[in-house]
């Protein structure tokens, strides 16, 4: 087991082809290469930023086509950072199964950077977010306006010198999101923020010609609470309850992903039993999430019964989760290095009851929907997304697989022991709503397979690591033994102190790759915690997808994207 005191290694001469090609292309514009905890990070100068991104994406040997994340970091008055800001880009190569982080330092005096929207379509909203939260201007961006905060918000909240108690009076919503052409007789319709098809609060403004959508623009941020800023003032443990509120339909998976990212930063793995239980509950959460997505989607099409059908299985799964940790929706069950407590003795029997319910409900749901011609007509060839565009937009998870790209973190980068389980990754062929639906249904079956295998060989043993610097000592020892008491006190008081460094931890959330980019300065709070929310990138493509389609198609599409406001707005 690696010690938590380990420090990052000095940058070594990397043998990775990524570094070699970037060096060939950019020469001394590559400022720094770090490889730590399996993450490759390349720092380039500002001049070479777009060229570097272009090389990563288009060079045949690199093929980093999947856009993942773009975010800012504020190094206010920190030693070792001449320039105040830093922008980090995460991309992934599906063909070479490799992540890379591209970073660029930006001085405070001239906080600008060229946009990479021309390279990755998905960068659009991420750059807007970075401008919104950090005030970094992206030259050439098509629509650099506030995204998460309100239009008349003052300042950039993620900057380290932003005064958090500051309050703003935000009176009116932005009236026009679209530019209406002069003399146009078309009708502008606001779909949302309070509309039956918008599950959660977000808004789309559409320019309608009859029932056809000519132009559309989305607005989000109604549920923005700046989770990332809150995380900067919480110890690593205290962040866990906040992660539950990201994708609240599958709360456990967010905690799982976060804990794994911190464990990667610490170099402390969780014991096998904890990992197996995490896998089981994560897969159950995935099933729930898919059920809700499908159920809500068909409610949008006017069929309410399937929604109630799938809710029965969700109820059975909630009962199981409640038996484990006492909570149903926001579970806070994981701990860094393991789980809060062991599962009940009859866990396996309870899990099998839940599986039986899932099986029953899935077959009913398929009977009601899969071969229903009205349903199929509403879904087939609607909202088609090509594989290439999906990657460029940063689509992940069932939506990406629906477009035919077989990227699943569980398969390609197994974590928590997924390599032990036998399961298939379903992919679509057309990339329409129907494919996304079928992929979700098949993933439910595969999740059941994984759960059954994991239940069959659930290991015995502790459910949390015995590393004294990470996990609290058992209560019995705290009450009887002075060392344990001191250990408990120090750990609660000082928190977990990870080494300075940065990691990008990623898991397969219900919506796809859920990433946590953690920058640690060695203190007890995360210096920067960036969530890579899957549905943020997916929803960014929505207003492009619905152009030229019917209003009814827009409604059919949005449900299948599974946009969860908690994760979208953070």
């Amino acid at each position, binding site marked *: 087991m690696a010690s938590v005191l380990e420090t990052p290694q000095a940058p070594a001469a990397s043998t990775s082809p990524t570094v070699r090609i970037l060096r060939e292309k950019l020469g001394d514009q590559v400022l720094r290469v770090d490889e730590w905890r399996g993450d490759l990070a390349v720092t380039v100068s500002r001049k070479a930023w777009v060229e570097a991104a272009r090389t990563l994406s288009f060079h045949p040997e690199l093929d980093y086509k999947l856009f993942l994340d773009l975010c800012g970091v504020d190094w206010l008055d920190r030693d070792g950072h001449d320039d105040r800001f830093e922008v980090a880009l995460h991309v992934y190569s599906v063909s070479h199964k490799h992540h890379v982080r591209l970073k660029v330092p930006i001085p405070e005096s001239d906080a600008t950077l060229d946009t990479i929207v021309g390279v990755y379509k998905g960068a659009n909203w991420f750059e807007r977010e970075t401008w919104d939260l950090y005030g970094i201007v992206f030259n050439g961006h098509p629509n650099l306006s506030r995204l998460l905060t309100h239009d008349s918000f003052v300042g950039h909240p993620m900057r380290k010198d932003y005064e958090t108690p500051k309050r703003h009076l935000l009176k009116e919503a932005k009236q026009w999101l679209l530019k209406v052409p002069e003399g146009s007789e078309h*009708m502008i*319709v606001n779909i949302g923020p309070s*509309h*039956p*098809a918008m599950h959660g609060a977000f808004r789309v403004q559409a320019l*309608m010609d*009859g*029932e056809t959508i000519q132009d559309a623009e989305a607005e989000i941020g109604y549920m923005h609470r700046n989770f990332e800023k809150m995380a900067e003032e919480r110890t690593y443990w205290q962040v866990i309850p906040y992660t539950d509120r990201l994708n609240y339909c599958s709360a456990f998976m967010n905690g799982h992903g976060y804990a794994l990212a911190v464990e990667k930063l610490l170099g402390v793995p969780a014991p096998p039993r904890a990992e197996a239980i995490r896998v089981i509950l994560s897969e159950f959460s995935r099933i729930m999430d898919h059920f809700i997505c499908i159920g809500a989607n*068909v*409610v*949008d*099409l*006017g*069929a*309410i*019964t399937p929604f*109630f*059908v799938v809710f*029965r299985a969700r109820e059975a799964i909630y009962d199981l989760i409640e038996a484990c940790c006492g909570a149903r929706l926001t579970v806070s069950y994981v701990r860094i290095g393991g789980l809060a407590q062991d599962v009940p003795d009859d866990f396996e029997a309870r899990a099998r009851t839940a599986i039986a319910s899932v099986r029953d409900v899935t077959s009913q749901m398929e009977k*009601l929907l899969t071969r*229903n011609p*009205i*349903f199929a*007509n*509403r879904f087939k060839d609607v909202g088609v997304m090509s594989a290439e565009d999906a990657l460029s937009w940063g689509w992940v998870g069932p939506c990406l697989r629906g477009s035919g790209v077989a990227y699943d973190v569980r398969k390609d980068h197994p974590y928590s022991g997924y390599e032990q389980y036998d399961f298939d990754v379903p992919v679509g062929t057309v990339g329409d709503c129907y494919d996304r639906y079928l992929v979700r249904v098949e993933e439910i079956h595969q999740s059941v397979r994984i759960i059954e295998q994991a239940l069959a060989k659930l290991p015995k043993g502790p459910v949390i690591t015995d590393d004294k610097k990470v996990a609290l000592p058992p209560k019995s020892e705290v009450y009887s033994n002075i060392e344990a008491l001191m250990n408990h006190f120090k750990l609660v008081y000082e928190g977990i102190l990870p080494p300075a460094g940065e990691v990008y931890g990623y898991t397969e959330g219900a919506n796809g790759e859920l990433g946590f980019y953690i920058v640690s300065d060695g203190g007890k709070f995360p210096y920067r915690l960036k969530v890579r929310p899957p549905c943020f990138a997916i929803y960014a493509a929505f207003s492009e997808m619905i152009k030229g389609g*019917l*209003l*009814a*198609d827009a*409604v*059919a599409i949005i449900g299948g994207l599974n946009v969860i406001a908690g994760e979208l707005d953070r």
Partner: protein
Amino acid sequence: MTLQALLIALVLIVVIFHAHLGLFSGMTLIERRVLAFMQFRLGPNRTGPFGLLQPVADGIKLFFKEEVMPEGANKFGFFLAPMVAIVCAFSAMAVIPYGPAFHLPSFGFMPEWLRGRLITPQIADLEIGLLFIFAVNAVGVYAIVMAGWAANNKFSLLGGLRSSAQMFSYELALGLSWVGIIMLAGSFKVGDIVEAQAGPIWKWNLFMQFPAFVVYLIAGTAEVSRLPFDLPEGETELVAGFHTEYSSMKFALIQMAEYVNMITVAVLVALLFLGGWHLGLGFAAPPLVGFLAFLAKVGAILFFFIWLRGTLPRFRYDQLMDFGWKILIPIAAINILVTAGLVAFLGQR
């Protein structure tokens, strides 16, 4: 018309009108309970025994709701629309016979002219009964268009547009589906059409005119905007469609009109296709049994509507139009041709 006949007609109007009102409020409860049963829920079961008083509670609630008049609405149209809707919905029942003719019993307290008198439970036996129903139905569409236009709401407008397009195209199929049975019976009177179906069960138009039955059932569902044809009020797309802005009693009237239309369609299916009050056994049943059989048939059709709602998703606008024009109308037209040929060669029935 004698004074006596007028008195009887007045009593019939009161009875049938209130029976409809009762059936309407009953339907709101039954629909919710049946849907709840299909969806593993309980439905309203707190107000009175089995929730029987729920419609009363709903009515009281709607009465005391605030009437909202949207800014910029056309007041005239906004007020007129629910009235037109309800008047059209109730007019159709004037020509519908709600059961077999029966003789009144002879009790001592009755005036002489009532004793043993033959009563047809039908307000007016028009020569062109079916055409009348068709006409008032068509006027009902204007209520929806008016409501959608007058409310000055974009979703209402889209709902109104959708429903006008939908109604006009499905009315065509609906009207064509009737032509075959009119030819078979040789009359526009609903009563005659029912009598033409007397005898063994295969005399029912359900079997004699099966394509017309299918077309009528589908077009009728579309006509009353029930799932899978509830596009005019397609909740998740258009919020509540043409009645988005309506509240209080005006909303209640629109709802009432929809339910009454649904009941009318169910009654017509029972009368025109399922043999009405005939049992299909080859002999004439006593009037009471016939009436109960008729009610059972209407109930089955109403249940079918609820069942549809509990099962199917909604059509898309263009698919709905395609379906109406490219499938239903050709089927109905071919059915007319075949029926006409058969009638010409073999004679009626």
